[in-house]
């Protein structure tokens, strides 16, 4: 797993935020996290990866941020449904970007959105995942990448 690969996933998220009015998504210092306790917030959009690298990549964000983001997109309805939709859209952008940049060897599944309970994300415990904290306005979200070679 190379730096370039990680960058592609991070770029996927940045790309999504380019479409928002406040396109200043700041990327924090990435760090490692034990898979026993996956980082997760209120809503998580997850894509599975297979091919030469297996695992998953997800974008996780708090409710408040998503609400603000929905409003900033000009959509007044901040229902649960729309939040799920939004997170799914971010995951979609990640997967689209990865498909384009990483080519055939990365096979990427359709995004799945998990809301609420953080226990629902299962990662291979023998691996560590990369956590890339991101800040949009004053909200913290994260891109988490867990891939084995």
């Amino acid at each position: 797993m190379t730096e370039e690969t990680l960058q592609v996933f991070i770029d996927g998220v940045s790309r999504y935020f380019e479409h928002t009015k406040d396109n200043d998504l700041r990327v924090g210092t990435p760090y490692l996290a034990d898979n026993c306790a996956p980082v997760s917030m209120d809503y998580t959009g997850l894509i599975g990866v297979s091919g030469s690298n297996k695992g998953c990549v997800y974008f996780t964000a708090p409710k408040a941020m998503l609400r603000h983001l929905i409003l900033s997109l000009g959509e007044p309805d901040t229902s649960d449904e729309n939040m799920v939709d939004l997170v799914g859209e971010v995951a979609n952008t990640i997967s689209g970007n990865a498909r384009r940049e990483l080519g055939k060897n990365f096979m990427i599944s359709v995004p799945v959105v998990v809301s609420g309970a953080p226990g629902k994300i299962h990662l291979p415990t023998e691996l560590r995942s990369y956590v890339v904290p991101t800040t949009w306005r004053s909200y913290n979200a994260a891109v988490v990448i867990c891939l084995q070679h």
Partner: protein
Amino acid sequence: MKLDFGKYRGIIVSVALFLLLDASVLLMNFYISFEISEDAVGVNLAGRQRMLSQRMMKSLLDLDAADSVEQRQLAMAELSQTVALFDNTLRAFASGGETLSAEGHGVMLGAVNSPAGRQALEEAKTLWLPFLQRLDPLIDRHSLGGDASYAARLHNAVAYGRANNLTLLRLMNALTVDLENVAASKAKRLRLIQTVGISLAVLNFFIIMFHFLRQLRESDSKIELARQETREILDTVNEGLFLLDRDQHIGSQYSHALLNILGQRELEGVAFAELLDGIVSDRDRNTAAGFIKLLFDPRKKQKLIGDLNPLRQVEVHIPQPDGSFANKHLSFGFSRVVIDGEIVHVLVTVQDISRQIKLADELEAAKVQGEEQLELLSTILQSNGDLLRHFLSNSFASFQKINGLLKQPAKTHQQYIDKANQIFALIHNYKGEAAALELHRFARQAHQFEELLDGLRRSAELSGNDFLGLVVHLNKLIAQTETIQGLVEKLGTLGLSGTSQVASSSATYAYPHWSLFAEQVAERQGKEVELLCSGFNDVPLPKTMEAALNTLTVQLIRNAISHGIETPEQRRLAQKPPRGEVDVRLLARADGSIQLSVEDDGDGIDRQAVIDTAVDRGLIDGAAAESLDSKAIMNLIFHPQLSTRSEVDEDAGRGVGMHAIREVVRELGGRVTIQSRRGRGTRFQLFFPAEINAVKSAA
């Protein structure tokens, strides 16, 4: 198309027989119908003879009774006509010949040959000939008329006629009846023949049907059996099997395994390219199409193009119903199907070789890992088990700290720089320890890590994303350290690697190890050095403290050699012995506090160089530099970004060593002092209060 006559002979003979039968019945029908129609003429004419015999008699009587010449002439004409007709017809009946029909046409009659008919004719002839003899002169002489002989002849004829007329009528009647009987029997025969013919035809039909149906059933069951066998083979075989036609479309039959291998799908008539679409690369797909085209070209040698098969071993990604992908390694084999010298199909076999590939990969990975582990193993076996375990637990602690630092939010460039510096201090320490244990692989990687950090520290504008490479590197380091820990644990259970040594570390300490380390550092720098150690075995220490002291000592020894001790050449010029000395001591005071001192007899700290570097790096400005006192200068040495050595290598030179040392010491609640004399040497002293020792002990 060739016909297999053998197979169809039965049916052909049957049908021919049927036709022959039909034809002969038809022919008989024609013939007998013709005969019957002839017989009908015969019957009619025989009936006319009956009638003629009576008309003849009547005109004879009319002649006899005629009063006038006219009446006589009329009767005579009638008589001559009927006699001629009767005679003629009788002859025709008797021996075949022509006579006149009722309509006045000539009609051919065959001789009657039925016995009854013949008998009637014979009898009629015996009666008729004398009658005719009597009539002929009458008719011939008629023109003369009126003489006495005429009347006598007439009388004679009338008398004969009267006597025999009824017999003649009866005979002609018998002839008629006979001829009717003959015709009736012929009609009966015709019906019989037709009945027999039709019966035979029906029989033939049933034979054909029976024969045909049986053959049909037999061949059907053979086909069914063959089909079932094929189905069984296709359902059971583990490989994917199917045929491709010239257009590269899949045939109607394929093995069940194919669906499992490629995912559930209907495949009949699907183009091969479509089958591959999305599961192999476009390039491989196109190459495969070209390859199959070659197989249909009889000029290409099948055995000599096998190497061009792009799908001989190919990794495929098969979409799953849940949206994910299953990865498989498949092997496609292609061979020509030749019938009558023509390549009609290409047989494709598909094998799932994922397991084989996985095993081969694992074997390869195991080999590589084995080599790496062997390298590590030799290091581990040479090292002191306790030290190694200290190193490992220290390493994990350092990595965790580094990760913790990474995790801390930062916003400004300065915050990022600080983060990089703090990480640098930790990794530098780690590098020192790794080098001390001769874990060169780790030392090298730590060095690379430092270089990455160095790159970061130099960049004008830092952001979180810039740390990405660092995190990847950190992950690698952790993974490798985990590997070595696994090995140590394994060896521990085997009782190797000194792990069974007494847990209390107060028994022995690793002077030989430090000496070796010192020698290695010196050698890399082209220096000579002797390490003197004392006190370590006299001071009882808790494990954690021991580990910390180990880290610090290693770092200080390295600094002493790298920065303090001069090369033998320089030492000779300074009139010192070429071999430098580093003296390491551990003292325990009565109050329980500990003091570690590392002293070298090197060149001492070049204060001006320190100031110049600090100014150069922008740590202080020129004016401030002027007013620095000795203590402040020494403090600069602990600055994270200072190094007075011009080159950077595995051993030293990044100037974080002292910073890192002070961090560790502070963490333990201790302090550091430096004493240095230019040309004479430097002494580092580390003081640790008693309570730290006690608390750590308890923990």
